[in-house]
């Protein structure tokens, strides 16, 4: 099947061809006119085999290292594209670990036939996202795959950051009675991408929440009662809470009306039979905080533009390993673990 994103025409200037991965002149030109052009910095630009990095590690800090594979269809969606998404995703993994991201490596897998203009746009967004967070892409690699193999483009991306030594963050810190906080409305990214696929004949102004969460995580890092942070990406809020229940043996009790969900997200979900609690976010943080510091954490978040809609949505409870959600009229249900990818309902 030909990929509708990619089209069928070929030509060295406008589309990626297998020659762009052959290691020769055409490949060098691609790297210079796309990757170095947008991402260039003193460590990347020499195009050496490995980046020699200045030691930005402060003495009482540890290194934090993460790696991620990034795919999304369509490649462009309201609020971002796969380039900015890749950078945000990796930065966020570091950020919720309490780290300040410093350097990224980016492996790019291109599909034969990808329009060069799209690649330019994607790498430009990648560069912009990295610049905004003061991180640098310092090394990388590019491969071209034959038509039909990779949906246009995907990335393998790794990141290094630093965090203060002695920071105790993790599910083992969580205690019954702790508060569950979320930094903003859930499900925006999932629905924005869904609408961008256009297959439902729905459209809307909803944008993905794709963004760096670094300001959010840094804002609360000094709270002694901060136990755990996670960005609810694939599988959404429900999946993060499940992981917590599983890891701690404790339960989570949620208050349905406190969970921020945009009206437009909820109505698309109602229409297609999705549950927003299972939809991906790309710019939110779930934090578990000691109850006595929950208000302080909320205030710190709500002072930031990204955290204005932050809420306390529930409590860690001792008596069950489930994620329970209760609504205002006393209805209660368990949020089960996600089984398969959510599908639009038939009718």
């Amino acid at each position, binding site marked *: 099947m030909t990929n509708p994103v990619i089209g069928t025409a070929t030509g060295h200037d406008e589309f990626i061809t297998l020659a762009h991965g052959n290691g020769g002149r055409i490949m060098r030109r691609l790297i210079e006119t796309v990757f170095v052009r947008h991402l260039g910095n003193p460590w990347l630009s020499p195009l050496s085999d490995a980046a020699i990095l200045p030691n930005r590690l402060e003495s009482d800090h540890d290194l934090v290292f993460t790696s991620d594979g990034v795919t999304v269809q369509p490649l462009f969606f309201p609020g971002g594209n796969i380039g900015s998404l890749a950078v945000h995703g990796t930065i966020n993994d570091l950020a919720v670990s309490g780290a300040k991201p410093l350097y990224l490596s980016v492996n790019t897998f291109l599909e034969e036939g990808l329009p060069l203009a799209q690649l330019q746009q994607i790498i430009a967004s990648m560069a912009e996202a990295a610049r905004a967070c003061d991180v640098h892409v310092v090394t990388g690699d590019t491969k071209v795959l034959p038509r039909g193999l990779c949906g246009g483009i995907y990335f393998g991306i790794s990141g290094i950051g630093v965090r203060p030594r002695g920071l105790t963050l993790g599910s083992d810190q969580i205690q019954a009675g702790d508060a569950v906080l979320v930094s903003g409305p859930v499900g925006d990214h999932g629905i924005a991408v869904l609408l961008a696929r256009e*297959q439902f004949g729905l459209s809307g102004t909803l944008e993905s929440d794709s963004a760096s969460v670094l300001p959010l995580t840094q804002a609360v890092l000094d709270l002694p009662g901060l136990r755990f942070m996670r960005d609810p990406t694939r599988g959404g809020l429900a999946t993060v809470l499940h992981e917590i229940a599983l890891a701690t043996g404790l339960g989570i009790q949620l208050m349905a009306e406190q969970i921020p969900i945009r009206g437009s997200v909820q109505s698309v979900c109602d229409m297609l039979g999705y*549950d927003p609690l299972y939809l991906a976010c790309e710019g939110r943080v779930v934090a578990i905080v000691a109850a006595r510091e929950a208000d302080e954490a909320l205030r710190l978040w709500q002072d930031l533009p990204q955290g204005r809609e932050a809420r306390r949505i529930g409590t860690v409870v001792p008596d069950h390993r489930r994620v329970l959600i209760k*609504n205002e009229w006393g209805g*209660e*249900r368990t949020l*089960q673990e996600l089984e398969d990818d959510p599908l639009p309902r*038939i009718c």
Partner: protein
Amino acid sequence: MSAPMLMSERALRRDPRYWLARIHALPRPESGVLRIMNVCGGHERTITHAGLRQALPDYLHMIPGPGCPVCVCPEEDIHAAVALSLMDHVIVATFGDMVRVPCNAPKREPRSLQDAQARGGRVVPVASPADVLILARQNPEKKIVFFAAGFETTTAPIAALLSQPGLPDNLLLLLSARQTWPAIAHLLDSDEAGFDALIAPGHVATIMGADQWRFVAEKHALPTAVAGFTPELLLQAIHAVMAQAARNSPQLENCYPQCVTAEGNARAQCLMDAVFTIQDAPWRGIGVFAESGYACRPALAGHDARVHFPQVFNDAEARRGEMPAGCDCARVVLGRITPPQCRLYGRGCHPRNPVGPCMVSDEGACRIWWSSGAVTPTDRAMA
């Protein structure tokens, strides 16, 4: 003065607590309990996910009925779709859920389209009829068989697809579409209907009109209300049937006038009528209901997979009635038992390893109950 009053009344009606209070204020039915059936996976999802069963008085029994088109798609159609997907020049396109619905194939044979896919079968999940059109245009050398199960709500867009000018020759339809009301007529004509009031499906009624359900109230004297899909809209309809029962005056009430009219969507009905006829049709594990299925009109024979591959359908026909051992789906679909009352529920049958379709589809009662926390066979808390 009156405008703000009106506003607040309207706002109140949007609050589930308002309707719950009014429901609790109604007298307990004389018979002791009132069994209210719904016939829509969307309704059952809201009832279960919003925890309405716990919030409603315990003398109301909310019974999921035949509300899922995936669950009632006959086993022989699944056999046929599996066989077609394994043919060289065929791609089977179908709505996501159908890919995982199992049939009772012998051990070494594929049990579902997903199994078939793992053995080289070509199966493409689609989200809408428009996707099928794209697929057909992109693969002119292949036959694209659109395996479509659905109630009236799904059938209408399929009819629209088939009515398009310039439909590609290689697009074939394997239609397993059903009308919803004949299943309820069947229950009502049986010795024990199993319910005392009906919540009629809002989406179906949007297309077919509320009047389709009039027979329940007028011929069978059961309180009936057409309902929307949010908790407050459902509660409003539950209140309506309770009030009818209390007054002993069963009637058809349209509690979803935002979308539903008495006659429905004439354009959609016209489209469906132009391409499909109504005929007797089998329901999985249950049997044949008169005038319950849609079939392609002879003029569309060129796009009818059943006409195109007679042998496949003859072979599949032979498998009719073969159900996986222990599967109680038919009784769940008819509302005879609740999901946890099936012996396999949560044991042999689980979303990861479904035995019956009701555990596959997001509209299936077993899947809905399981995903809301009624996990084990003994977990009757939701009932």
